[in-house]
């Protein structure tokens, strides 16, 4: 009815190649962005901002990162939490060594450190494939986790072994540390997410992205067509780890406000991110956001939503039931739609386009 492309003619190649060819999509995106920037921080409660919005935004960057690696390049990695940790620690070290440089720059720069580590651990991907590679990347996860605990220089010899996020300001407004307001943190996170998504979207639609997808579909064929596997795969690892690193810095500096690496960046987070990629839809930008939203919102909704609708559960039982439901729901979703939430979204859009006719 309102979602029709009738009358929208493509008169040149640029129109034809546009990421959002339909005008309603562009309007919808603008509306969502306006809503996220102008309405959400002033309407939602502090609780929602803190427990859902901030982790959602921070993790969605990591999910985009892993999606670039797994969804677009076809390399499965279980080390994402480790790379997030690298970003967080790099950012912490940088901002304590050079406190006069703005923290936002360091959050961005810390991604490069993660990228360097990612390239190193991505080297085996040139020889190992598939699930073997997935297990091999666990080496990165466990080694990095060990390093975060055992190298005291990384947390400035803090006796508690944890990062404590210092107070940093932008134009006099505190943006990190205990006195920063949630709204400011939210807006900073949002800016990062929008910027990084724009960057990722351009990357995957460009020459580099096409070479990644060629490698994913069949790497030997891609090599025969003249794509250098070394460059393509390591580039994917670098970009993916860069995103994870920035995500880790955001996660610690804006969401947690302090972290112990042994617990925060554990293997479970790696699985959760891979989870988000698969549930959201591998090889899809919107899928990354849907997946990240799913993994962040579901536990909270179950924990606080079930008592609200009259199913009384105590705290300890709640966690067990939540685990069971997450497990069951995952299997159910995979059975119903193995291509993820992004595919469901696509089907819905298609249905809307031809509504009220079946096709």
């Amino acid at each position, binding site marked *: 009815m309102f979602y029709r492309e009738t009358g929208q003619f493509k008169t040149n190649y640029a129109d034809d190649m546009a990421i959002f060819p339909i005008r309603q999509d562009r309007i919808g995106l603008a509306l969502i962005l306006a809503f996220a920037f102008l309405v959400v921080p002033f309407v939602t409660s502090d609780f929602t901002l803190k427990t859902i919005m901030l982790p959602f935004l921070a993790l969605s960057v990591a999910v985009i990162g892993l999606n670039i690696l797994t969804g677009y390049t076809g390399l499965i990695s279980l080390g994402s939490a480790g790379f997030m940790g690298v970003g967080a620690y790099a950012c912490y070290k940088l901002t304590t060594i050079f406190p006069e440089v703005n923290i936002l720059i360091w959050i961005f720069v810390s991604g490069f450190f993660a990228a360097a580590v990612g390239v190193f651990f991505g080297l085996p991907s040139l020889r190992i494939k598939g699930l073997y590679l997935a297990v091999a990347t666990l080496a990165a996860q*466990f080694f990095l986790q060990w390093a975060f605990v055992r190298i005291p220089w990384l947390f400035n010899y803090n006796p508690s072994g944890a990062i404590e996020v210092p107070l940093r300001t932008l134009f006099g407004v505190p943006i990190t540390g205990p006195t920063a307001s949630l709204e400011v943190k939210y807006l900073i996170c949002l800016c990062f997410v929008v910027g990084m998504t724009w960057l990722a979207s351009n990357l995957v639609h460009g020459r580099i992205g096409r070479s990644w997808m060629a490698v994913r579909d069949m790497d030997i064929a891609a090599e025969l067509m003249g794509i250098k596997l070394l460059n393509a795969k390591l580039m994917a690892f670098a970009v993916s780890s860069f995103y994870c690193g920035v995500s880790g810095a955001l996660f610690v500096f804006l969401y947690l406000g302090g972290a112990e690496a042994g617990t925060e960046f554990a293997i479970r987070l790696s699985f959760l991110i891979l989870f988000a990629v698969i549930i959201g839809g591998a090889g899809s930008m919107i899928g990354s956001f849907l997946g990240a939203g799913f993994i962040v919102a579901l536990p909270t909704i179950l924990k606080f939503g079930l008592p609200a609708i009259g199913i009384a559960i105590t705290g300890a039982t709640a966690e067990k039931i939540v685990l069971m439901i997450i497990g069951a729901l995952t299997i159910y979703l995979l059975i119903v739609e193995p291509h993820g939430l992004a595919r469901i979204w696509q089907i819905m859009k298609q249905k809307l386009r031809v509504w009220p006719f079946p096709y």
Partner: protein
Amino acid sequence: MSAVTSTAPKPMLSPAMMATVKVLGVFGAIALAIVLLVQSGAMPKGSIGHKVLAAPFIDMWDLPDLLVQTLWEGLVAGVLYALIALGFVLIFKASGVFNFAQGIMVVFSALTLVGSYEIMTQRMGLPTGVAVAILALIVAVATMFVLAWLVERIVLRPLVNQNEIIMLMATVGLTYFLIGFGEYVFGGNPKVMITAELGLPTGNTQFNILGGRVNIQHLDVAAAVIASVMIAGLAFFFQYTRIGRALRAVADSHKAALSVGISLNQIWVIVWFTAGIVALVTGIMWGARSDVSFALEIIALKALPVLILGGFTSVPGAIVGGLIIGIGEKMGEGYWGPLLGGGIETWLAYVIALGFLLFRPQGLFGEKIIERI
């Protein structure tokens, strides 16, 4: 298939033996180089090179009893890793599913055993002792069968022929479900394994050999023996029984097996049940060495490097891989760990496995990967 391959002339040494000879040669050359470096004075005592390359070996030579002890501990750990890996391999061969839940099945089965024993003795008033322990064992085995059946029905059947990563994610979902379910039913507190009630030996023996003392837990001996018996039993089962032949057929080719009338669904239940039994035995052994709780989950992750080392599809690979990882890990932690501040056990196994993989991407015994366009 075999008719085709047998026409090729046989080389003097099989490829595996050739590889072994090569590896031994490389190791020998490295050892010689180290000895030469130390003797020539290029690596003075206390230098980093000496600490990393020479001192651990000198320690091994000087204190052989400690070396034997470390090797024994590595061997026992390796046997248990091999058992977990065996469960993975069974399922991967028969259904192509990388069963991430195998580690949780280990904990879940052990928890069922201990939990049902507790319920029977404490709430139902049955006497403690061997008889009830065996009853609990039967309950645990039955639970694993029900689990296998449910997994086949609810998870595998609708997901058949999906991408391997989707199957992996489904088993991760299963993992979460089993953790939640196990803790919900049996409580989250660590439990003590009913070692004595099951007739497993406790205590230890000390041997005076090589000018020192080596301490051997009876339980570890029992674990090694039981594991060997079970592996032999499984090998027999696969080789000589009707169902075993069917299992091997399914592992070879799903389609061909279906076409000769083998029921895939039935085979999957059997395989998951077998993996469940293997998990139960592993759970008893691990549980007896520490408490039974979901913290044991971490050992499941230890089985993954064993798996990539041995190859996903090879039973001997799982065993040899388990031993290499177990011994390598304990030796590394004991002799090189202090140089790095200890705790390197958590990642050393992966690095060892990665080192092997760089030379053989399909694992030690995995099928050769042939890629075609």
